[in-house]
């Protein structure tokens, strides 16, 4: 079988089509002078360090301004997601998935729901509207993820304005998502078999209008920073990775696409209704930090495109599967009849019984392929639940990327790896 053909990357305002070395840029080699004899020195960065967003610790060996060796140490944020999951019902695990990649919680919710539904073999039975809603919220969530990632890393590079602008847009989306889910950040909105509740009335129109304003913010930021010389000096040719390296090291998501591989789960193994959507998968050609930045920038626009298509396509209907073993009965039955009470009780206390078997299900999270490997033993909780965290694999190459680079390069490399402690260390 051959690869499905992808449309070319759209050229955007503010982004020069071909990259030229900006005049006046000082190559890193200019900083090494023979006049200053240096000796290797071990420096400990983190686990709580301004240049590290998140709690990663690096023991770097520097020779003058150059990093000769870097040892990245994790575990300061290991919250034992997998152990907790072995002691919780499938429904109780959703809150934990919220806190995996807490910048795009709904992507995790959806990913986990899909995994359990695959194990239950009810993927086909999910109501259409529920699937559309899942796509909408996870795409919105993806936008908040990228806004935070780009905003925070711009701030770390000194562009505080971009941070404030993008945070403003993120606040809008939080407010909208809050109207749907009831929570600003940790939503726990998706359930096995559907979603908790339907979209509130008038929400779609509001969000349509909101999206145009978000788009404006994105354009604004794009035009402000993408061509900015200082910014490009910091990002271009920093931490480059080739296509082969990226694949071998298990990269996925924006990082992998920046290295020129057009692997996107939404295209290559379409789940929900992504096969009905028309959107582009941006790819970079150098795999440096600037490419990763731009890929995310473009992805946000593509996500907005997807959300709009969902709005156009979706029709009224149920939002959760009609199955007494999975969906809770209506509340008045629960409170007034023993039948409803027992039904509710069994689902809540014993959990949704998943037949024995092992399944691996994956979806496109904010950082790339988010996979859940479920070992079910027929009871209401997973016997084992393993989470394939995308940035876990992207981060482990950070050491190699900053080798022989300058200390200042750590910041963009880590910013673009988008290290999310909760997801990476689970």
């Amino acid at each position: 079988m051959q690869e499905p053909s992808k449309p070319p990357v759209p050229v955007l305002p503010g982004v020069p089509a071909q990259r030229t070395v900006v005049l006046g840029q000082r190559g890193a080699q200019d900083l090494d002078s023979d006049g200053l004899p240096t000796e290797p020195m071990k420096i400990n960065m983190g686990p709580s360090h301004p240049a590290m967003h998140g709690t990663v610790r690096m023991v770097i060996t520097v020779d003058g301004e150059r990093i000769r060796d870097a040892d990245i140490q994790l575990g300061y944020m290991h919250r034992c997601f997998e152990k907790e999951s072995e002691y919780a019902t499938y429904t109780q695990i959703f809150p934990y998935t919220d806190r995996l990649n807490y910048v795009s919680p709904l992507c995790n919710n959806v990913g986990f729901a899909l995994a359990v539904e695959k194990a239950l073999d009810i993927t086909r039975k999910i109501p259409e509207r529920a699937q559309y809603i899942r796509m909408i919220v996870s795409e919105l969530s993806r936008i908040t993820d990228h806004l935070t990632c780009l905003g925070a890393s711009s701030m770390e590079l000194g562009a505080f304005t971009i941070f404030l602008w993008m945070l403003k847009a993120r606040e809008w989306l939080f407010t909208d998502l809050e109207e749907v889910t009831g929570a600003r950040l940790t939503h726990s909105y998706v359930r096995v078999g559907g979603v908790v509740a339907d979209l509130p009335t008038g929400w779609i129109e509001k969000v349509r209008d909101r999206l145009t304003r978000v788009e404006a913010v994105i354009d604004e930021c794009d035009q402000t920073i993408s061509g900015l010389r200082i910014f490009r000096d910091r990002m271009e040719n920093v931490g480059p990775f080739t296509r082969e390296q990226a694949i071998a090291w298990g990269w996925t998501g924006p990082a992998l696409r920046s290295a020129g591989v057009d692997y996107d789960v939404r295209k290559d193994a379409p789940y929900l209704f992504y096969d009905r959507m028309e959107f582009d998968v941006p790819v970079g050609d150098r795999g440096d930090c600037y490419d990763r930045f731009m890929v995310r920038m473009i992805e946000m626009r593509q996500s907005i495109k997807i959300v709009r298509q969902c709005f156009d396509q979706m029709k009224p209907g149920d939002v959760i599967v009609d199955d007494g073993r999975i969906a809770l009965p209506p509340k008045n039955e629960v409170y007034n009849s023993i039948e409803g009470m027992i039904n509710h009780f069994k689902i809540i206390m014993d959990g949704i019984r998943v037949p024995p078997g092992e399944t691996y299900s994956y979806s496109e999270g904010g950082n790339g392929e988010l996979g859940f490997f479920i070992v079910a033993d027929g009871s209401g909780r997973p016997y084992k639940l393993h989470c394939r965290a995308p940035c876990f694999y992207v981060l482990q190459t950070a050491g190699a990327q900053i080798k022989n680079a300058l200390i200042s390069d750590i910041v963009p490399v880590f910013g673009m790896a988008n290290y999310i402690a909760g997801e990476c260390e689970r």
Partner: protein
Amino acid sequence: MSETVKLTIDGREIEVPKGTNILEAAKKLGDEISHFCYHPGLSIAASCRQCLVEISGNPKLQPSCQMTVTEGMKVSTANERVITARRQMLEFTLVNHPVDCPICDKAGECLLQRHYFDWDRKSSRVDMDKVHKPKKVDLGPTIVLDAERCILCSRCIRACDEVAGVHQLEFVNRGDHSELTTAPGQLLDNPYSVNTVDVCPVGALTAKDFRFAMRAWELYTTPSVCNGCATGCNVEVHHAAGQTHRLVPRPNPDVNKYWMCDEGRLTYKAAQTNRLAGATIDGLPASPEKAIAAAAARLQPLLDSERGAIGVVFSATHSNEDNWVLGRLAHEFLGLQRAYIAARAPVPERADKILRDADVNPNLKGARAVAGAFGQSGQGDLVALAADLRSGKLRGLIVLGDVVLPDDVVDAAARLSALVLVTTHQGALERAAHVALPAAAWPEMHGTITNRDGRVQRMRAAYEPAGKALPAWELLAKLARKLGATMEYPYPRAIFKEMVEKVAAFAGAEWGKEAQLVQLRFANSRG
């Protein structure tokens, strides 16, 4: 049981012994037929009509618990007709059942909940008031009845008749006003009364000890053995947060069938009250390492001068492993000669033909076997120990287990030049001891005990030992190392293997599999 019968259940052929009923035969095939009144340990009532199945050639549906299999019988347990019947029976059962699950002790392990969820899941069609009955009937010292929840399966009545052998429960009235009750002025007070709670498929009968104390689904279960007497009933320890909340019998056809006595159910209380939490030197708290060093220092001079005057006390309340390590320490390494076996005095009046035994030590036979393996007759009991203490024959003593002695004997023991105690509980002797080391109680340790029939049964650790306690074998091994002996056991199984090879009485004993810690809500076996 030689001759067998062939039949087909849902198209699958199976061969079972003659006289088996269809329900059991189906269970062998792995598909469960829902039932309320049937219990494998009790006689057949066939009153709940929940287990109806279709037998080809038989116009009416038949209760599978009552029908014994016949040659060439064709049974279908889950066709449309059968399931409809099941649903109808369930609907009738639920008509007058109160909406109690949130406050019901059985919730989470309730057969009614389970069968409704597995088979029915239809909403109620009844819109009139339910029939109300007394909610809190005090049936006796151990049991409270909620008559509304009762589904009239009569399991409890049969349990009293057939297990305890006394007829104390009966139904009165008829129709939806039928009620479970005792005879006027009578109480449900037989020594096996709490078994009625186990067999009750719903929350009608609740044990006063467990009532409203803990939610069933939050408990974790660990298979173990009751330490109440020499019978060694197999039990499940139900515990949460390092505390036992109840013991329930674990079916074992050779020992306790499906039952255990009320007294045995309460043995967990003793195991978690008045415990010795930390090591003491001369009554003052100390770190385990210091205490063990002090014990060795106390014993060393005696070992050098008058080895013959040191005695060891094996324990009939500790596991075979603990006794074995003590034996090796005392006889193999220190070459001591005086051995005693501490056992609680028998209680003849509690003995009966059912389960309860006069000997209230869980492991007397095991302790004797171990002592015997080291050439100790094992006849030196507490009386001999008391005599030797009084007469001053003994100068030093290593005691395993919490031993209860008369006051004057304790005073005599206090005058010894070395009294080292490895015990689970506080007590007079513990206060008199020079060094007392805290040992893990039976729900906290892996090990084996030997019951009255010489059956070696496995106990499993349910949770971490209380306070700073350690398994006794570990403490004794550390003490042995302090005294220069080489004794290394990575885990109790190593001791067991060694012991099984050396001790004839334990030949062929099995250690058994490690059990996973499962919360009851996820253990599909119950409810």
